[in-house]
Structure formats: C-alpha cells, structure tokens
C-alpha cells in the first residue's frame, strides 16, 4: 500500500498555507510532519483526511480497498477528541466502533489496551485531558483502518501513556499500517521526516 500526494497546495482564508508539496509513504512506514506553528501541518492532515479540498494537486492511495476512498480507510485523530461529555467512556467508544464499522474489536479490550478500563462507566465529562486522549486512541484500535492520520497524538499524554502509544503505533506499522503524524515532539518510532514551512 502506498499513500502519495503530488504538488499539493492549500489555501485557507485567502492565504496560501503551503504549495508544491509532495509526500509519499508506504505500508509499514511512518511519516512525521514537523515544522513551526502555522506552517500547515494540521491543514495537510485535513487535506489527506478529505476534510479540506486542496487548491491544487492530487492524493492517491494505491493498494488499498479499491471500493473505498482514502478518508474511508483512514483514522483521523485531531485536536478535538469527538467525545460526548454526557456519555460514559464505554458508550463513547462503542458508538464510534458501531458507527465507523468495518473490522472491529471488542470495546472492552481496547479500553484495557489504553489502560482506561477502570473508568469505563464514568461519564466522559469527568476525564482529564490525558484520559480523553487515551480514549481517542482507543477509537483507533476499536476499528481497523490501514491509514492513521495523527495530529499531535502525544500531547497531554504522560510518560507511561506515550510509551504505551509508541507500542501501539509499532504494532500498527508491523501489521502493514501506515502513519502520517504531525508532531513537535519525537514520535518515538522510526519515522521519515517531512519538514514544512521553514521561514514561512
């Protein structure tokens, strides 16, 4: 499987965020997008997730499911964690598992994998920022998607959480997955670097 973007250009609010950007990643590989604030890391991820339309250029995923588009084969872990405060931890996770569909895993197991099983019945409103992040990560595990698009995935995680997430990313890559992550901190896994912005 190969994810490639060619000559991508993104314009937001009349301002060019980036242009002429090429990227590629193959199965089992992680791509770390780095760069200063405002250099377009999040915009690039949202373009890949199909949430922003690129002004120019094309994106292709070869070797995936031909019936599905790239966004349909991708997980997006953004700044906002898509959790409903009124629902419990387990309800939040089960909803996304049922709604996203496809190849799913037991929600309980996924909560154990992110060490959140003790809080399964707690409303999500009472979770700390790090616990919310862990619950979002559990969503990546509950439904299998080959492409992970991660935006600052380790923010708010403690040292144990970061180590745990590194292990999960390794497992995902080993099973033929592909990761594109925007990050300021070292990911902790072998990743190819895509530097954005610079002076801009």
């Amino acid at each position, binding site marked *: 499987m190969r994810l490639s973007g060619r000559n991508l250009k993104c314009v*937001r609010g009349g301002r060019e965020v980036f242009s002429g950007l090429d990227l590629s990643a193959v199965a089992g590989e992680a791509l770390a997008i780095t760069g200063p604030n405002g250099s377009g890391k999040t915009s690039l991820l949202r373009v890949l*997730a*199909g*949430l*922003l339309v690129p002004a120019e250029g094309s994106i292709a995923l070869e070797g995936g499911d031909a019936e*599905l588009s790239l*966004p*349909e084969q*991708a997980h*997006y872990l*953004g*700044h*906002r*964690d*898509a*959790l*409903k*405060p*009124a*629902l419990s931890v387990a*309800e939040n996770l*089960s*909803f*996304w598992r*049922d*709604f*996203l*569909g*496809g190849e799913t895993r037991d929600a309980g197991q996924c909560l154990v994998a992110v060490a959140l099983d003790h809080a399964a019945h707690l409303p999500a409103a009472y979770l700390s920022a790090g616990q919310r992040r862990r619950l979002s990560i559990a969503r990546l595990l509950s439904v299998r998607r080959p492409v992970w698009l991660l935006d600052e995935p380790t923010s708010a995680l403690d040292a144990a959480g970061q180590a745990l997430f590194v292990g999960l990313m390794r497992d995902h890559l080993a099973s033929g997955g592909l990761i594109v992550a925007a990050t300021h901190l070292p990911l902790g896994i072998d990743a190819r670097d895509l530097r954005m912005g610079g002076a801009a």
Partner: protein
Amino acid sequence: MSALAALIRRDIRIALRVGGGALIGVLFFLTVTVLMPFAVGPDLALLSRLGPAILWLGALLASLLTLDRLFTADHEDGSLDLIVMSRTPLELACAAKALAHWIAAGLPLIIATPILGLLLNLDGTATLAVAATLLAGTPALTFTGMIGAALAVTLHRGGLLLAVLVLPLSIPVLIFGVAASQAAISGPLPFGTPFSILCALSLASLVIGPFAAAASLRHGLD
C-alpha cells in the same frame, strides 16, 4: 444500517441526559401555551378558536429552539469530521440525526398536546386534530430546519440566523397545519384536503432536507 442505528441511539441518549435538549422544547411549549390564556383573557370561545394556532406556533418555536444544536455540538467536539469521513453517506447520516432529533424533541411536543389543549378549552376532537396535524407536520419542521442548522454550523451563536433562514420555509407547514386543524373543528373545508398537503410537505422535506444539509455541511467544513 447498524451505523445509522448507532447514530440515532447516541443522539437520543444525549438528548435525554442532563444538559440535553429534549425537555427544553417541551418546557418552552408549555410556557407559551400557559401564558397565552392570560394574555388573551378569559373568553373561552375566543381561546378555543385560537387554540390550534397557539399550539402550532408554540410547537414551531419550540422545535426551532433546539434545532440549532443539531450539528453545532458535533462540529465543536470534532465528531462531525469523523462523521464526514466515515463510510456512511453523509446524506443518510444527516437523515438519521434529524430523525433522532424529531424522536427526542418533536414527539414529546405531540404527547404534550392533549394536556395543553385542556388549557386552551379545546374539546376532544379539536385536540385530536391538532395532535394529528402536529404528527404529520413536525417532521417537515425538523427536516427543513436541518438545512438551516447545517448552514449555520460554523457560525458561533448561529441560532438567530437559523430562525431567519428557516422561518420562511416553515410558513407553508404552519398554514396547512392550522388550516387542517380548523377544518376538523369547524369546517367548511374537509379535513383531508389541507392534511394531505401537510403530509406532502413533510414527505418532500424528508427527501430534500438530508441532501441540502449534507451539501452545505461538505461546503462549510474548514
């Protein structure tokens, strides 16, 4: 199918829990209807003549009150991004959300109608007629309102804009809803004529609403 069922279940569950919108609409409906006899005065004949119109206005405003949160809540917490990316067509997801909203916020209004009818001196037939027209007409309010909710999704405090956008679309529903109720009470028109137009309005909005909402959601994402 299970994806849509999951979405409907989740939205109803959120609406019924603390901070959800389900009861707010009914309380507003109750307030409007209870205050009306005090404003109009103790003329029972006048009250029962105005009754259907008052109930319809109350239900219309109550459903507008809760509609603005239909997509904003999901937009603010990032859920909408995942819904757009998912394998479920956005049109169906919009229809499921509107259906869940109608079940959680529209049905309680209809259930409350017989009790509120008593306050307006409506007899059994009149109350039944109003409840039947509300049952046929409120889906149209929800599904056209959804278009406005989708247009206003990226705006903060888009509630007022929603009202301005949606009210013109709800006027035909209001006209035929009240006309059908009046026809059942006093005639001279047969009940069936305005009632079938009301049903037609609901069916048309059931088809147009999800497509228009999905289109404006796709366009408005940023």
